[in-house]
């Protein structure tokens, strides 16, 4: 809230143009973002099985969702996916970004290769990994790799981490790209000056690259955290649509889908969906607030 909006006004004209220019985006956002949101909030107070008529449920859906242990278990799993994903993806993405940033033919070749998983649809990625991780017919069947012939997706202890691994496989390239772009924006003069002062590569990385990447890191982390809060498709495919084994990978979005489209309890599913929106909103506000992202002053002040 540190940005002070200029108090001066030149009549309604400036406001009008601003509005006009923002109109297409706002219209689309309103139509496809806000309208469904309001609909979902309204539906969370209703009783509807998707077929019959809609009935008023009051707060029954909310009280049943909030008192259901399964909701909190799903939320716990979501937070776990979020935290583990962040811990796994950030260092790898940063390392890849550092590797990709300098120009060079080999580096760009690798950059292209690393980027490939991002181009595949989540369903394709999920089905491929499901086949690869099959203990009887997957990679575990390769001579020399028999130690991989474990029920990686089938054991309640391992399944969630396997899912996190596959998510990382798909999304690390994207975050590496963010870091690569961030690193390329750091003025070489900084490095040259530091080198003249006798700073080694490690010191340069710690004292120049990392601080300069602060906002890249904030962006990447926000996308990662909010993204994994709503992450659905890969987990759905990898667990055969059930969030199994047991409920070991049933994260909140998957619980919402199962409630809505398999149990056909649209009211409860809408309550879960509203919860997700609230958490997502809170989370992105929190990350931006904590990291000072909203101030977004230049990291190159004084250059």
């Amino acid at each position, binding site marked *: 809230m540190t940005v002070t909006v200029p108090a001066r006004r030149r009549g309604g004209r400036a406001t009008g143009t*601003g*509005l006009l220019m923002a109109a297409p985006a706002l219209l689309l956002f*309103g*139509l496809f973002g806000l309208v469904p949101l309001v609909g979902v909030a309204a539906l969370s107070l209703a009783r509807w099985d998707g077929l019959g*008529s809609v009935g008023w449920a009051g707060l029954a859906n909310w009280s049943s969702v909030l008192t259901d242990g399964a909701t909190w278990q799903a939320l716990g799993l979501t937070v776990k996916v979020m935290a583990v994903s962040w811990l796994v993806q950030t260092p790898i993405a940063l390392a890849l970004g550092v590797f990709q940033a300098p120009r060079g033919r080999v580096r760009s070749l690798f950059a292209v290769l690393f980027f490939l998983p991002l181009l595949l649809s989540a369903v394709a990625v999920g089905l491929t990994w499901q086949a690869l*991780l099959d203990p009887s017919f997957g990679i575990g069947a390769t001579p020399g790799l028999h130690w991989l012939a474990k*029920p990686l997706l*089938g054991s309640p202890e391992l399944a969630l981490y396997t899912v996190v691994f596959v998510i990382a496989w798909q999304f690390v390239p994207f975050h590496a790209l963010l870091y690569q772009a961030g690193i390329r924006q750091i003025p070489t003069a900084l490095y040259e000056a530091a080198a003249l002062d006798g700073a080694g590569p490690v010191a340069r990385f710690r004292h120049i690259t990392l601080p300069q990447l602060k906002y890249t890191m904030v962006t990447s982390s926000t996308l990662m955290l909010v993204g994994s809060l709503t992450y659905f498709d890969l987990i759905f495919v990898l667990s055969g649509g059930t969030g199994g084994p*047991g409920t070991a990978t049933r994260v909140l979005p998957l619980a919402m889908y199962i409630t809505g489209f398999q149990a056909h309890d649209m009211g409860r599913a809408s309550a879960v969906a509203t919860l997700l929106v609230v958490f997502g909103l809170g989370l992105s506000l929190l990350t931006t607030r904590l990291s000072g992202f909203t101030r977004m002053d230049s990291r190159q002040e004084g250059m």
Partner: protein
Amino acid sequence: MRGTPVNGNLKGPRIRRVVASAVALAAAMGLASCGTSGPSGSSADSSAKGLTMWALNDQTILKESVDAYNKDHPDEKITLRLFANDDYKQKLRVAFGAGQAPDIFFSWGGGALNDYVKAGKVDALTAAEANTDRFTPSVMQSATFDSKVYGVPANGLAPVVLYYNKKVLADAGVEPPKTYDDLLAAVKKLKGKGVTPLSLAANSKWPTLMYLEYLLDRQGGPQVFSKIASGDAAMWKDASVTKANQYLQDLSKAGAFGDNASSVGYDQGASTALLYTGKAAMEVMGTWEYANIAKAAPDFLKKGDLGYTALPSLSGGAGDPKSIVGNPSNFLSLNSSTKHRSAALTYLKDYVLDGSQVDAYLAAGSVPPVKDLESKLAAVKSSSDKAWLTFVYNLVEKAPGFQLSWDQALPSDQADPLLTNTDKSFLRQISPADFGVNMSKAAS
């Protein structure tokens, strides 16, 4: 040097006002749309001239009946749309909710179909309208609610049977198990030989449920589940339900399903492959598995290595060992808001499971649920197919009861708790008694 321009602050009062007005606008539009597009007044989605019909994409024989109908009725054709198994139910539900539903649709009967019946979305069919008397009565029960018929069977009988790899069993010196105790003994011997005794796609959860359905039917008899299906939630806590879970967990504890079952999904064909590649000795699965094996491993079938038998009996159980569980059939039902009722009835009456359809199903290794099939069975040419078809036909004919799969028989809001608790029981995350307690909670 300049930093990159940043446009991230949604903070000024001006923007806040815009957002506020957008929200207000959105709210108004939302309310307006709630008023007009409610789930009332759904009409069948069909072009002016023809009908639409939805089915699963593996129903290639059913497709031929539509083709035959279309050939005879060029003015009022049926447009058939085929869907993958997994999301079909959701698609159909959403289509009905949105008033975009097909005139004729494919279902499993049971509780899921009853949801549509209760919502007034399906028309009852009289015996004369759809000639329903030609079908096996025990099968028709899955589509009969309040003694009215709401669907016509559209494909083969699908009881659950025990398949086995003859070669693997012979190598281990094991006879096909006739009782549960035989099965446990076979499990020990087969494990010693290093093969997985029972191939199970536990990742898909419903294959595990087949064990519970069978074990409960053997242990407590058919009345336990029929009471549950009629809404008696307390019946889940019956001792026989606990016992059935105990038997399942005993099998699992004995290593009957190997170490990897929970990673195996059915749709990828891995559990089938384990059986015909000899990595597993047996598999409990519906009769559709025969066609899957014939397609995936024709040589295995040709060599005569595939064996099949009824599910083992359970000593001390109240159920009849001749009883079967599974899916009696799939059904075609009529959307109550169709504008093409008479054309749809013509199709259901004269083209679904007519003589040529029956022949086509038999040729594919599937027994259609029609009466008096003996002469047709005797005329089947391939001897391995004939043995199989006769086995299935006799199994169903002699069965005193045919229990519809629980996940289809129960209302759809209980299907997920059922599958989840089945999986947890299989993984031994919950005790045998917990299963019933959890289910009775979910059902009440």
